[in-house]
């Protein structure tokens, strides 16, 4: 009996010590991208790493290898099981993450979205790259200003379940309905993550619509395919490619003229802001209407009604400035 008490006492003491040891470790902020290994998310990773050093947290970067929502959910589930204090996700399937958000809440963990939202999931905050509104409108306004208001335009998107891609398409469609009555938008085509499929779809769209004037690569993974298809079809000058493409991915197509411009934001800054937001959540500090983030120049607005923390206006990359960026 006595020995059992000793064992219990020792056990409690060990646990207490372990507890102290854990408490002394840095809090962890995880980011789960839609897929790993693409330049865009690598850049977010680099920004997140920088913020982690700046704000004294441990940064975990892990994600699926092929933009599969089920794999992504499993990875998030693992992080929740490990008790990672703050977990951010670039959501692939917005309808799938609500249960895991509830589970994280029950464990006292912070689960939030970044880069791609799941608005009805109960997430703590959404760290937005630029408002979807701003991205959609900037792209279609820039495109129409270059190819004219009397134009037929096609979309080549990635996965049909990506909520951010679908949101941009919807905003472009609404903008056209409201502002550009003579623009015809074709039904979006979905290439998944494969750039040869994107090239095939782009070339098929150009064949089916000889009067096509613009082609929008909605997912970054479809950018090389769209640019390449326009070059191969010999349609530079007839069809103008554009899309949400990183400067490195689109550089050669912007230089050849297959792509007139691309619209995006700086993913490194987005990764940085994501980790900062995670740290704020862990510390229990509320977001202000306008936040000063050490390391970012511009003030960061927060909309309490929608729970969105906004990085800023999108950037338009053209022949003139594409050389200044490396991501």
């Amino acid at each position, binding site marked *: 009996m006595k020995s059992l008490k000793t064992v219990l006492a020792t056990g409690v003491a060990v646990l207490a010590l372990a507890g102290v040891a854990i408490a002394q470790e840095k809090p962890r902020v995880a980011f789960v991208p839609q*897929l*790993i*290994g*693409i*330049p865009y998310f*690598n850049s977010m990773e680099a920004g997140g790493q920088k913020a982690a050093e700046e704000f004294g947290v441990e940064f975990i970067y892990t994600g699926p*290898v*092929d*933009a599969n929502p089920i794999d992504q959910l499993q990875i998030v589930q693992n992080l929740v099981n490990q008790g990672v204090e703050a977990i951010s996700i670039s959501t692939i399937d917005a309808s799938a993450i609500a249960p895991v958000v509830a589970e994280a809440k029950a464990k006292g963990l912070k689960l939030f979205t970044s880069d791609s939202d799941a608005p009805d999931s109960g997430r703590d905050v959404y760290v937005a790259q630029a408002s979807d509104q701003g991205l959609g409108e900037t792209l279609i306004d820039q495109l129409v200003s270059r190819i004219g208001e009397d134009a037929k335009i096609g979309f080549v998107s990635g996965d*049909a379940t990506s909520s951010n891609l679908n949101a941009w398409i919807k905003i472009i469609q609404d903008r056209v309905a409201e502002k550009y009555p003579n623009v015809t938008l*074709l*039904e979006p*085509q*979905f*290439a*998944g*993550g*494969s*750039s*040869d*499929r994107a*090239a*095939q*779809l782009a*070339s*098929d*769209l150009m*064949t*089916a619509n*000889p009067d096509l004037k613009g082609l929008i690569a909605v997912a970054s*993974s479809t950018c*090389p*395919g769209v640019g*390449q298809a326009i070059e*191969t*079809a010999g349609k530079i000058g007839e069809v103008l490619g554009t899309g949400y493409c990183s400067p*490195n*991915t689109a*550089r*050669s*197509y912007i230089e050849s003229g297959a792509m007139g411009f691309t619209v995006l934001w700086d993913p490194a800054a987005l990764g940085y802001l994501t980790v900062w937001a995670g740290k704020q959540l862990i510390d229990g500090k509320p977001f202000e209407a306008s936040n000063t983030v050490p390391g970012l120049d511009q003030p960061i607005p927060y909309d309490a009604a929608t729970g969105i923390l906004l990085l800023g206006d999108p950037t338009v990359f053209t022949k003139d400035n594409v050389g200044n960026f490396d991501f």
Partner: protein
Amino acid sequence: MLAKLAQRIGGRELTLLAAVVAAAVVFASLSPVFLHPNNVYAIIRNSTELMLIGLGLTFVLAIGGIDVSVGMILGIAAIAIGNLLLAGVDPWLAALAGPLVGLALGAFSGTVIVLGRIPAIVATIGLLGVYRTTIFALLGGSWLSGLPSSLSEIFAARIAGVIPTSYIVIVVAYAAAFVVLRRTPFGLHLLAVGNAEERARLSGVAVRKVRIAAYMVSGALCGIAATFYIANYRNVEMTVGSTVALDAIAAVVLGGTSILGGKASLLGTALGVLLIRMLQNGFTIVGLPSLWQPVVTGVLLLLALTLERAAVAGLFRRLGGLVAARRTA
């Protein structure tokens, strides 16, 4: 006449040919641009890689094997070619790197399967993971994008307006494969191993060597496909080759090569590839959402496996009988 032709070419091939023609007629009646030379060129060009990978898989299926990692072999070979082009290596030399890398990977896969005594489906799922991670590591998170167009100038040029020059290589490859399969001891051994491995072994066939060789042939053809992939698309992204295996296996099985081994049809494979690519193209042209395309490939694969032998053979026996009856009448 028809019955003789059917016997000579094979029922499955004629069914496929009829399906290709029927699909073309339907699409052409729905869209005026379907038969435009540029679109015909697009279909044929988009079939390039699949023609070669399907040919290689025909060898693998003939021995009763399978390889779901073919897309990844294409990817690794494409990265090698791309990096050589970027380093300024002569395009002809860079093009040679493709088949060499593919051959090496095929030899590796074959050795793992045969010497490890692992069922091919399990082994190649494992290798798929290994090769895919290799692609990640090789690309290091940045796509090869905007590669020099030197290979495109060689292989994407057109013959008669609709056929890319890469098809010279494809025709030679199919002819060589035909000779190997039908006129050499190796071809006979391949089919014998696929039919009844134990009996082949007892008859003195070097079963292991034959099986490894089949994977080497497939690997090398994936490597040649990679050369054309670079010529066509001039970039390699992280997800390279992710849809290749399903399309290629569906094409080969559609073509009448048995998934159980022992039976190979080269003409069937080529027609199967053409049918799949034509359906994918036609659906986009007539405005069907591209979401449905993998469903179509999947359903075709299931149909082919269900119809395997019985129904098709029966149909053509009757058709043949009908023609013969009319001639005697």
